[in-house]
């Protein structure tokens, strides 16, 4: 398998080549990749692909990986049904 066909984001099935294309169109941070390609927007919410994608970005842009901004993590940490979110719980009927 060619190196650039390796999957980085499994949830959204994005390869190194997909992310490289976003980079070539100017994406420089993980959030840019996210908006351009959906990388990180899958079921695991970037828990799996964040580090790998950032390593590629750092490599392509020649910026140390520690200098890249983090992605914003938002509620909820784990998927929960809407009824759990409703204040005071959800009442049937």
């Amino acid at each position: 398998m060619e190196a650039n066909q390796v999957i980085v984001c499994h949830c959204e099935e994005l390869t190194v080549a997909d992310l490289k294309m976003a980079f070539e169109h100017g994406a420089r941070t993980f959030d840019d990749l996210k908006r351009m390609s959906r990388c990180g927007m899958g079921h695991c919410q970037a828990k799996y692909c964040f580090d790998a994608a950032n390593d590629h970005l750092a490599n392509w842009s020649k910026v140390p990986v520690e200098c890249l901004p983090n992605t914003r993590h938002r509620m909820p940490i784990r998927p929960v049904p809407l009824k759990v979110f409703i204040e005071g719980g959800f009442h049937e009927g």
Partner: protein
Amino acid sequence: MKVETYDAIVIGAGVVGLGITYELSKQQGLKTLTIDQGYPMSGTSGATQAWIWVHSKTPYKYGQLSLASANRYQELQEEIGDIEYIRSGGIAPIFSKQELYDAKALQLEMSKANIPVDLLSREEILKLEPNLSPNLLGATYSPIDGHVNPFKLIQRYHLQAKINGAHFSFYNGVRALEKTEVGYKVTTNRGVYEAEKVILSAGLWSKSIGEFLNIRIPTHTSRGQILVTEPTEPLIHHVIIGMRQLSNGIVLMGFSKEDVGYDRRTTMDVLQDTAEKSVNLVPKLKDVKIVRSFSGIRVMPNDGLPIFGEVSEQKNLYVAVTHSGMTLSAILGKSMAELVTTGESSFPMEAYSIERFKGREENQ
């Protein structure tokens, strides 16, 4: 420092600035540069519901503008490639008697613009959308409303403009804007650029950039928080005020408007309220899982209408600042390119001139 010269510079590469850039790029021989302090979706355009919404845009003239934009998206879909513009039809649910009266007034107002708005009874609306709550009194419905894929729209504008020869500079914030003898000088953190014409389309930030030239752009901010579900069975088939379901089964839900300045956090109270409203509207959502939330800040002109056109005291300086930028980018782009290159636009835009704020209280 070397100064680069262009015919026109667009400040801000959100959906509005890119729509303008794309239309300008079709002009042979016009050299343009579009500058953004971040990347095209780092502003409001990256945190949006992306409805192309027409049927409740009052007064009717504003409805007409929104309709013209919706029609332009049909052409763009051919011109720039698939932006997933779909006219799903739009529904505004009615829960109370007062809303019912308002709906009748809306129907009348929109008829002046030939925008079809149907007033549906509970039975009719439940036939159209069986998963809506039976507690509804009814709804207004219009086949004109729809949605676009905002990521695709922005990519297509950007790529097609690039192919046509437009220049771009990202991660390059504008730090000063001055008048020169021939036009304007734009100073950024990476260089100095000059152009005869400048178009200010920096969304929320336009107000502070305008201050470099003493132009007051009377806007305020409005945060919207959105809940995102996992992909689920098809529950709704139209855009329903507050929510839509994407083709991959994900439902986006949001009803909130808060003036909290540039604060882009999400907060538990608003998200709980959003969940409650959503379940009241579509009861089956109660068991669907939320995977994510996000928030975006809308820029709101103080009288709610777009601010568009040349600034009278600053010749060759144009502004395009609006809420509902997803709905309007197509018509604003086309009109701005016409205005910049010929001095006139085919769709009447005079009513949206910034001059209307002169002497008004909002301008204080």
